[in-house]
Structure formats: C-alpha cells, structure tokens
C-alpha cells in the first residue's frame, strides 16, 4: 500500500543551517503529473559604488548644477561624466558646468510607461543637449502638449523642491520649454 500523502519527514540540517519550506506537493501521487516548471526564488544583494565621476555629478546635481567631464584630448564635454573620455580611453580632466538651458536632439512620445516613476501617458521622452555639452542625456518633457514637441526645441530643467534634493537623477523632475528660437536640427547631429 503506498504511503499516505504528506507523510514525508524531512530532517532539518543541524544548527538550523537550512530549513525546509512547507511542502505543498504530495510525496507521491497516483495521478502522475508532468513537472513543467520549478520556481526557485533567488535574491542577491549588491552594494553599488558609483565611482568618482558619477559621485561628482550627483553631488553637483544636489546643488542644482549639471556638470560634464572634459576630455583632455579633444575638449569634448560628456554628460553625465563617465570618468573616461570614451573616444580616447583616458581619464577626463575635470568637470565643467553645462546648461541649464538645453536643446532637444531627439524625442519620442511614449504611450506605455515603465516603472513606478513613470508619468501619466502619453508623455515625451527626449534626448536633451545642455548648452556646452557634447552629448545628450535622457529626460522627460512636460508643460507642453506632446504633439508640439520638436527637435531643436529649447528647454530648461525643472527641479524638485529644495528640501527634496538628493544625490540622484531624480532631482530633475522634467524639462520644460523656454521662449527661445529653436536650435537648427542640423547642428545637433552627432550630439545625440
């Protein structure tokens, strides 16, 4: 006679090194069932280090300043700073403040957000080139109907309230249009 369901004994490891989670599947079943999947919860914890260049960037961002890293060979300014000049593989030689005014180099209208911080759809996600920078960073465009956004449009950052500033990209809530003539899109090629 086969053993009754759920009568399997599991000996815990000594010293409570590992305990068996509750078993919900019978030890033996006369109606065999193909096992298609096993669910293995897995969690790993990491403590990330930003590194020197991102640290400088985020600390400046907490002061409502956007900075870029300067390539010592070409003078190009990388935002956010990466510590390296990506074209030459050499450390950047310090930072300069860029913006806050900027131009939109490319954008799209998003109809499906991702993550808890996504604004209501539809919204505009854009590549934004702060004045003085050589490459763009991503940002949201708000305070303008989404179908009026255009490449070359001039924008400025909208910051969180001073008491909410922290060392994080979230200091910039979004970018809004400013009353200046558009930048010629032809000048923005290569700066995306």
């Amino acid at each position: 006679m086969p053993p009754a369901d759920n009568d399997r004994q599991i000996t815990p490891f000594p010293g409570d090194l590992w305990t068996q989670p509750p078993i919900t599947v019978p030890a033996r079943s006369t109606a065999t069932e193909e096992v298609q999947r096993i669910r293995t919860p897995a969690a790993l914890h990491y403590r990330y280090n930003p590194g020197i260049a991102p640290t400088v960037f985020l600390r400046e961002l907490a002061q409502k300043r956007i900075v870029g890293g300067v390539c010592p060979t070409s003078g190009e300014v990388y935002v956010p700073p990466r510590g390296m000049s990506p074209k030459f593989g050499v450390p950047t030689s310090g930072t300069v403040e860029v913006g806050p005014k900027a131009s939109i180099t490319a954008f799209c209208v998003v109809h499906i957000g991702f993550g808890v911080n996504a604004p209501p759809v539809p919204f505009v996600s854009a590549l934004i080139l702060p004045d003085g920078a050589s490459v763009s960073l991503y940002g949201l465009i708000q305070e303008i109907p989404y179908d009026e956004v255009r490449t070359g449009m001039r924008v400025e950052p909208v910051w969180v309230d001073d008491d909410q500033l922290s060392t994080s990209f979230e200091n910039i809530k979004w970018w809004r249009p400013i009353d200046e003539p558009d930048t010629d899109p032809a000048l923005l090629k290569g700066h995306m």
Partner: protein
Amino acid sequence: MTERVAVIGVGQTKHAAIRGDVSLPGLLREAVYRALADAHLTMADIDAVVVGKAPDFFEGIMMPEGYLAEALGCVGKPLFRVHTAGSVGGSTAIVAASHIEAGVHERVLTVGWEQQSCSEAMWALSFQIPFQQQLVAGAGGYFAPFINEYVRRSGAPEDIGILVALKDRLNGLKNPYAHLHEPDITYESVRDSFMLWEPIRYSETCPSSDGAIAMVLGNESAAAQAEASSGVPPAWIHGTAMRSEPSVAMGRDQISPLASQECAAAVYAQAGITDPRGQIDVVEMYVPFSWYEPMWLETLGFADEGEGWKMTESGATQMSGDLPVNCSGGVLCTNPIGASGMLRFGEAAMQIRGQAGDHQVDGARTALGHAYGGAAQFFAMWVVGAAKP
C-alpha cells in the same frame, strides 16, 4: 595558411514564448541534435563547442555553459562562451569560425540560445541600477527617439514601419520554427495595434522568446565529407567582421553608426562584394523594431542615406523583390536574444544550402547575415555563399 570554413549543419528549436516542455539542456539539445543530424555527424565528431548568449540574468544562472558541459557533449573538449550583448549570436558564430580558420580545429559546434521565460526579460534588461538614470520609458523608449530622428531626417511616410512588420510576420508564416505565427495579420491590424513609443506600435516590436540555434562549422575536408554524406552543399564563409564603438561619444550617430558602416565595408571587402545590392541575393538582418529595416538598409550600403525607406515601400525587400530581407520572419517573429544573431547567420546559411523550405529564395548564392546589439554599438556580420572561396 588559414583554412576555408563552411556551415555544414544547421538546426534550431521551435521558438515560443514558453518552451515548458523542455528543460534548459533539452532546449539546447533540440537544436544541437538537429544540427548534427543535418551534418550527418554525432557529438563524438565535434572538436570544440563555442556558445553565446546574452546576460545571464535572463535565466538566473551564472555562466550556465559550465552546467551545460555534459548536455553539449563537451566533457574533455574545449568549451568557449562569448557575450557581446545583442550581437552575441553573430559574434559567437564568427569566433567559432575563427577556430577552424586558424587551423586549430576541424569541426566546431556553435550554439546560441535564450530561455527568456525563466525570468522577466524586461526586468533583466533594465532593472534599476543605483546611481544610474532610470529610463521610465523602458527599452523601446530608449530607441524610439533615434527612429523618430530617422523619420524626420528622411521625410519617410509614417507607415513604413507597418510595411516592415507586415512583411516579416507574413514571412514568418512560412517558417515553421518561428515563434509568432499570425495568419490574420493585415496592414490594418498592425496600424491599429497599440502605439507604444511613437512610431513603434505593439505589432512592430519583437517578441520575447525561448529558443536555440546550433550550427556545425567545418573545414574544407569536413565540408566535403558532410556533402558526400548528406547531399546538401555547404555554405562557405566568404567573410566575417565585428566592430564596436562606445555607447556615448560625440560624433556617434545611432541612426547610421560608424561601426556598422565599417563592419559592412570590412565584410564586403573580404567577400569581394563591391555592389552589395547587385551581388547579394538575400539578407537576414537584425530588426527588433520595424523601422530598423530602412535604417540598416542604408548603413549596410543597399540604399543611399535617407533612401532606405523607398526600398521597403517599393517591395524590394519582399521575398519577391530584388533584395529579400528576413524571409525567415526575422527578429520581429522570433527573439531569444542570445540566439537572435545566430538565427540571422544560420538562416543566411540555410538559404545558400537550399534548406529554407517555404521561405527559400530560389537560386540564392550569396547571403548576408547581420547582428547588432547594445546602443547600436556592437556589430557582427558574415557573408556566406555557394561558391568555395
């Protein structure tokens, strides 16, 4: 002296959203057994195995090739694992070919796979890393601005993407292995599908797939033996190239990346191709979002800058056109990320060998396989042909 290299066996799985009927080793062996059977070989005949796949977070197994050593028939043999982001399927095939070209091995098995149902692929692609900017628009929102710039610069009509998606999905119906089979798809159904990131609609995006592809590569004598056994001619590798550029750099243009242009120029030079549109019979190109077809047509030298969309619109890239693109259905039908690049390379080889069944381009003698990844920064390409180089 370096060796000539040929594709002498190709095998792939039936790709699907969830391949719940096989374990991870089972998924690979389905492709591997088909490739070995195609080459009339067994695992014992293989000298080395070169595998590639995308980030290990997709399956939750760190460096899974170690676990797969037995399943790949690799115990006591060399096993090599490539990881070059989205282009990995392509670069893996190139690394495998170079083992033979260098004269180190005679027969190499190469496998690309992904079992994306094991985890949440969107999460694995873009989980929040501290101190880095979170893209609330998701992966598609990262690429869509560049696509919009292409539309703006080229003045392309706004339905070019719809034409690509329709073509690739209809082609996929002719490929029994493809993941998405949508017999009811129409221009209207694509146009009316949910708009995700303008101009990309739901029906214009790649799926998330479980799947694998394997190829057996051989040197000249192995190719002769395989052809004698199987009656199927080899697809000779006429050229291979890989290029990379930084993700962010002034002067970069993700619409027509310099790395893509230079990679294409290098592979064409090796393969003796001076007129790509005239000399290449069929293309398998990595198109995960519809608009990449016209963009890549330009950067691969098939159309002038700003003109790629005209090739799509005219029907030139249909199977009946003069440059069929993605007869297999491409990435828009099937996207196990680690395999997708190798699927392009493998489907190109299948066209040369006359193995593409209902999606065969008659008389194809020269084919281009193309893969890319990262922020349009990693490129891997090969040209395969019927003629021995």
